[in-house]
């Protein structure tokens, strides 16, 4: 009934005082999310395809962090990859209007991870359910290449009950997604997650966030998707690029028994269109940002030529009714974005 109460509060948003005193009521006057209003492009670059995907594959990123890690870790996420999300929310145990972070009345610690996760998904559903199509969870030491995530997701419908990440095989029949490597839920998957808690099909079963969520997903009929590229190379990675590329993950490590798909080490470990890496420290974040978005070889013809997702043609069709709605919403977001975080509207 505690959980029930919390859920009522979150869903109804402006409900006051009818819960036990331990729960925080979110009567928000301050917007604690960051809305970016367009994609970021480099000077001299043609970013039209990326911009099209930005408009039509809207991703809300929420980042698991805490008060002690804002300066050490979350700050660097904010300075790098999270700028490429449509909306980003930093989830902590306390509200911090300056950073900004959202506190959802949890404590800090590993045993709180699933509570944070449950409440974070309920929070983003409530606050931003209509403004995004896909909902990504990442840690403050995960590096995500959001443009590549859009490439994968563009071939799927947000109305399908599906979620993507680095698929692990133990414990859950269809597998579950690694928490550290980040995972993303479709809108329908998020709906079913929230509904699952309302009907108590899903509960706080354990603090092992990724496994517990995976078990809930299976119960509510959300499919564990295959996030590999067209050459069957993994896109979500549980370690830093060096570990995968140089094959230095020890054979006795848990990793070898966990991966759902065959493990490849060396250059074919990782897609050219990688989506995530984990255990990325701050200087590594900037390194990856430099390698992904800046450093390149002039005129080089990439070996891997990824196919364009078919839906691009749909997105570019001028007579789609939905496009108008999206522009409208974008217009609203633009204003909000400019008020709250003007520096995020700058092009690179």
């Amino acid at each position, binding site marked *: 009934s505690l959980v029930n109460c919390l859920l009522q509060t979150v869903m109804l948003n402006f409900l006051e005082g009818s819960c036990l005193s331990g729960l925080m009521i979110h009567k928000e006057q301050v917007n604690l999310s960051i809305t970016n209003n367009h994609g970021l*492009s*480099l000077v*001299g*670059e*043609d*970013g*039209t*395809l*990326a*911009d*099209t*995907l930005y408009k039509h594959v809207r991703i809300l990123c929420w980042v698991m962090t805490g008060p002690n890690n804002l300066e050490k870790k979350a700050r660097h996420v904010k*300075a*790098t990859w999270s700028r*490429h999300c449509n909306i980003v929310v930093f989830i902590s145990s306390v509200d911090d209007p300056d950073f900004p972070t959202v506190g959802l009345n949890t404590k800090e610690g590993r045993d709180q991870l699933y509570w944070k996760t449950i409440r974070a998904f309920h929070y983003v559903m409530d606050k931003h359910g209509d403004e995004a199509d896909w909902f990504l969870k990442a840690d403050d030491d995960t590096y995500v*290449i*959001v*443009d*590549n995530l*859009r*490439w994968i997701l563009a071939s799927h419908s947000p109305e399908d009950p599906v979620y993507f990440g680095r698929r692990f095989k133990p414990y859950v029949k269809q597998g579950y997604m690694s928490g550290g490597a980040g995972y993303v839920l479709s809108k329908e998957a998020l709906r079913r997650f929230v509904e699952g808690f309302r009907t108590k099909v899903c509960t706080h079963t354990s603090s092992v966030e990724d496994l517990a969520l995976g078990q809930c997903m299976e119960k509510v009929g959300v499919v564990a998707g295959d996030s590999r590229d067209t050459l069957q190379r993994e896109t979500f990675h549980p370690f830093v*690029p*060096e570990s995968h*590329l*140089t094959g*230095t993950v020890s054979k006795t490590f848990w990793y070898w028994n966990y991966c759902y798909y065959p493990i490849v080490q060396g*250059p*074919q470990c*990782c897609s*050219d*269109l*990688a989506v995530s890496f984990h255990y990325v420290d*701050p*200087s590594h974040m*900037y*390194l*990856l*940002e*430099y*390698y*992904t*978005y*800046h*450093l*390149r*070889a*002039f*005129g*080089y*013809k*990439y*070996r*891997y030529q*990824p196919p364009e997702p078919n839906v691009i043609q749909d997105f570019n069709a001028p007579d789609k009714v939905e496009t108008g709605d999206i522009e409208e919403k974008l217009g609203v977001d633009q204003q909000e974005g400019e008020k709250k975080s003007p520096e995020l509207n700058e092009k*690179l």
Partner: protein
Amino acid sequence: MMSEGSSFMKGLILGGIFCLVMSFFETFNSGTHSEGHEHLHHHLKPVSKDELQKLSESQMSDWTLQVRVYCLIMVTPKLLVHWATANDTWSKHCDKSVFYTSESSKALEAIDLQEQDEWARLRKAIKHAYENAGDLRWFFVARPTTYAIIENLKYLVLDKDPSQPFYIGHTEKSGELDYVEYDSGIVLSYEAMRRLIEIFKDEDRCPERGHALWKTPEEKQLATCLKYTGVFAENGEDAQGKGLFNKKSVSSLISDSMGQNPADVVEACCSDMAITFGGMSPSQIQVLMYGVYRLRPYGHDFHDSLTFLPPNDSDND
């Protein structure tokens, strides 16, 4: 007594004046010498995107051919790990790469110059490269501890005429001498090489074995010899003035930037079209290969006017 003393003094004064006059003449001469061959471009930048877009198809293909690079990689068995890494990675992007070693190694192929002295070895390598250049017109000299993105080197020299003398890299100053730092790689055009070969014959201005008690580093000896032929060091930089040749590793440069420009780490750090980095381990280089030649954000395209194909015999790019 007095007359002897005063003669001596007169002699001394005369001698002193004579010396002063001679040294004035010398500086005057070298002054005019350097003024005659003006420092037209101390900073060397790539061709602009606008210029590139104006090119015709045939000019494009002419330039693609002209800009091919001969890499001279100066190795020693002590640097075997770096030698192997260079062999497996960036050297494959050169149109021709030749490893020149001080002594042969069973593990890897190289031209054995059988020469322990570094300057003498460099001279021999340069002579060999010039004689075996075929129709290649650009030369890149590096140690295997340097990592190079050859496509970006080509971009830098794309619109430069190799029948003109060019000597490019990261420039440093030593007194009056501007020289290109060896650790971040040295670029020479065909004409610069030709002049160098000529001046090698001059044992006074460009000796093979130095007469001094101390050893001058090869990079300065090279600069001195080239200066006698009227070729001057130029600093390679991008359109924003950022240096393209680095002797530090990427992570080292990022760390520096985190300290100096915390609000703008990546922007302030390094050029998007960087050519060289140094001091990187083999695993860091694997990550760099992936970062340069593979990892990218979908939907961001550059439509470069020229195309460089991947090499035939590698799997990490």
